[in-house]
């Protein structure tokens, strides 16, 4: 007998759409930046929900080309039925790698934190090496890292050490925990310093709990067990924070892992509760502003800027708080460039066989950036910034950098 199942049925469709929720509308294929740029990629619809229907069969479907999915999640952003397209692709890719083994390169890129730690410890040397043509030639041959891809500069003093050495500011009305991520720790400490300065300027105490890589490099390099291990460590530590302490992330993709993927893709126990407390830094500052608590004592910053919204920011489903914030600053002229994915997608565009594709995906954005000729391109995501600098030869910064200048912390 058929019973009335309005509540359960509709909630199933919306909260965690099963593969059957895919109506095969092909909307995902139309927005996929990889499918747009190469005909050998069969698109998210085929590699995600369509193949998924066969993956649970005894004779599991073998799908080639899963590694061409860059993980931008635009398919999920645009799916009218909220199907977790990219998650199906990631799980299948992970299963394939677990069965067949993964390349040394993908193992290394999945362990970005280890790599960065090493880079940071040997900073001057590592940076020299990363710019040496001979070293880069060897890296391409041995590791499959494209010789043209500029690698980030490492810094010897990590954010973590900088933070523990500084005098602690405790006169605050509220406390937040900062999830700084590997990028701020090993490559751009200055951004972390700015985040701390801005929060303290607004009367907020910043604490920095011990943390691990968010795990996204491991997820996209088909090492879900490693991601789950990292995620589990983070969830354990962040769960122990007092209930009134919000968690702030300044990296778009780290934030998305904490908010969503730990619970949904990696099934980490306790992740939902942690995710509900995580805020993107600009999202958080905007909330302060709406509560009338943001210090608006800005110095004018006379500059023309372009804003590129990272794909993963769209997945946050919070709009573009960075643009709203920066428009509060006198002198800032800010426009949005809406040319889609920049193409790098974390470690995707670093790989020797994907570099050209990544540059082709980003070509529309590069052209628009060059044509606009602004002082800088802003993006909340660090690899978007790397890609825009490389592809368009433009200066790039996190929106927080402009806010810090307005507060006199430039």
């Amino acid at each position, binding site marked *: 007998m*058929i*019973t*009335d*199942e*309005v*509540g359960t*049925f*509709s909630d199933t*469709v*919306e909260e965690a759409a099963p593969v059957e929720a895919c*109506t095969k*509308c*092909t*909307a995902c*294929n*139309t*927005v996929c930046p990889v499918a*747009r740029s190469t*005909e050998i990629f*069969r698109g998210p619809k*085929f590699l995600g929900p369509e193949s998924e229907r066969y993956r649970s069969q005894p004779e599991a479907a073998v799908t080639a080309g899963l590694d061409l999915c860059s993980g931008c999640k635009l398919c*999920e*952003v*645009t*799916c*009218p*039925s*909220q199907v977790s397209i990219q998650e199906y692709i990631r799980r299948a890719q992970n299963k394939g790698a677990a069965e067949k083994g993964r390349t040394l390169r993908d193992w290394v890129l999945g362990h970005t934190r280890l790599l960065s730690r090493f880079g940071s410890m040997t900073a001057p040397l590592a940076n020299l090496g990363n710019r040496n043509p001979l070293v880069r030639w060897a890296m391409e041959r041995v590791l499959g890292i494209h010789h043209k891809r500029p690698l980030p500069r490492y810094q010897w003093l990590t954010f973590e050490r900088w933070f523990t050495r500084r005098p602690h500011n405790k006169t605050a009305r509220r406390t937040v925990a900062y999830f700084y991520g590997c990028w701020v720790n090993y490559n751009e400490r200055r951004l972390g310093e700015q985040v701390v300065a801005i929060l303290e300027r607004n009367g907020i105490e910043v604490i920095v709990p011990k943390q691990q890589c968010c795990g996204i490099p491991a997820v996209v390099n088909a090492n879900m067990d490693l991601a789950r291990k990292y995620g589990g460590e983070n969830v354990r530590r962040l769960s122990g924070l007092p209930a009134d302490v919000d968690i702030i992330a300044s990296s778009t993709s780290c934030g*998305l892992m*904490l*908010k*969503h993927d730990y619970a949904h893709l990696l099934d980490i126990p306790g992740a939902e509760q942690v*995710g*509900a407390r*995580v805020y993107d830094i600009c999202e958080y500052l*905007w909330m302060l502003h*709406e509560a009338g608590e943001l210090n608006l004592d800005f110095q004018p910053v006379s500059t023309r800027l372009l804003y590129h919204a990272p794909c993963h920011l*769209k*997945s*946050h*489903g*919070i*709009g*573009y708080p960075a*643009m*709203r914030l920066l428009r509060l600053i006198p002198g800032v002229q800010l*426009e*949005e*460039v*809406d040319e889609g994915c920049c193409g790098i997608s974390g470690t995707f565009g670093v790989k020797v066989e994907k570099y050209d594709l990544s540059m082709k995906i980003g070509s529309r954005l590069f052209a628009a950036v060059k044509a606009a000729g602004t002082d800088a391109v802003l993006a909340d995501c660090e690899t978007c910034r790397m890609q825009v600098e490389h592809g368009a030869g433009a200066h790039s910064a996190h929106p927080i950098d402009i806010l810090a200048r307005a507060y006199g912390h430039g």
Partner: protein
Amino acid sequence: MKCDIAVVGSGLAALVATRTLQQAGRNAVLIWPGLSSLYFTYATVDVLGYSDLTTTQPVEQPEAGVAKLIADHPNHPYALAGLDALRSGTTLLIEWLRAAGFTWQGSLARNLLLPTAIGTPKPSCLYPESMAAGDLQRDEPIVFCGFVGYEDFVPELAASNLSRSWGRGDQSVRAIRVSLPGFDTSRLFTSIDLARSFEDKAFRREVASRIRREIAIDSVRVGVPAVLGLTHDTDVYSSFAAEVGHPVFEIPTLPPSVLGLRLFDRLRKHIQESGVEMIWAAPAHEAEVSDGQCRRIYLKSAGREHPIDARAYVLALEDMVDGALRAGVHTVVDPFFHQSLAHHAVPTERTDESLFRPQPFASIGYAVTDRLQPSAGDGHPLARNVFLAGGAIAGYDPVGTKSRGGLAIATGYRAAKEAMAA
């Protein structure tokens, strides 16, 4: 997040409402549930094709047809939105299309009869320049041209159907197929892949010359599936038509509709780059109402529910797909106010077995007041500052009467005006 007016939806009604607010200098935020319904619909603007669900006689003058419909049916959504909203909204849309670089044609005064992919005539009054030459009120013979390996457009089917209904003589309709360079039948491809290829000049030129070789006679027009460019369509169309040497018209194909995609992508980009904030990937639900005012709705954002506090809300959603309605086995409820919108003791009452007869589910939706506020059906608003637009309004079948576009415009415009005054 706080804002002046929140528009929920991504179809034509939501876009028209947002543009109306933007032009009036209001601070609107556009909240997407997922990709626009424009991707799945025909992407001409149909104001009124048939005056009711039973007639086969198309409406010739849509504006006059709507005026009559309003006089005859004072509770129809067109009557609630008003003829002025249709007129002003259409003017606003036409100006916007021009500003965003489109070359659309037509007006509310006259319907064209444009051939569909199965060779039936469809009344539409606003359409891209690239479809205009298909008008079946003109007499030139038609050659339907398909592409080898592309199964979403079967030229023989279109030709055989049209030759039976059109009545311009035996030789008036033909079908041909040409092969496409680089697309062999072993490759799986869609209209989107073709549209991207047509943006390449050499590809276009080669296809045009193959079509020219197939058509030895003069004074015909050529109907091709709508794949002439994905984003740079204006240039693609005009140069391709010139190279074919005959008038060319595009015919919309199965979803995803290239025509709808062009329309949505460029309007979205235009409105976004001119300063309207969009919140992607955030299905909206749960209206919090107190003292007759909606104080807040919630978005299903990553990690948690994201509250939106607006002075007024335009709910411009369409149907089950974009989250306007939630259908259980027997009951359809609305996700904002949790009303039961329809109940069917036997689930099959909701559908008709024939795909081509009116479908009962098509007219399920929100009852509204004469200001387009959602109501419990008693004429009193559930919230004074919420306004409905588009397909989710109850009591009409936008597909059956070919009025989806016009109603989206009229209700989108009117809802935006009401939201500003709320």
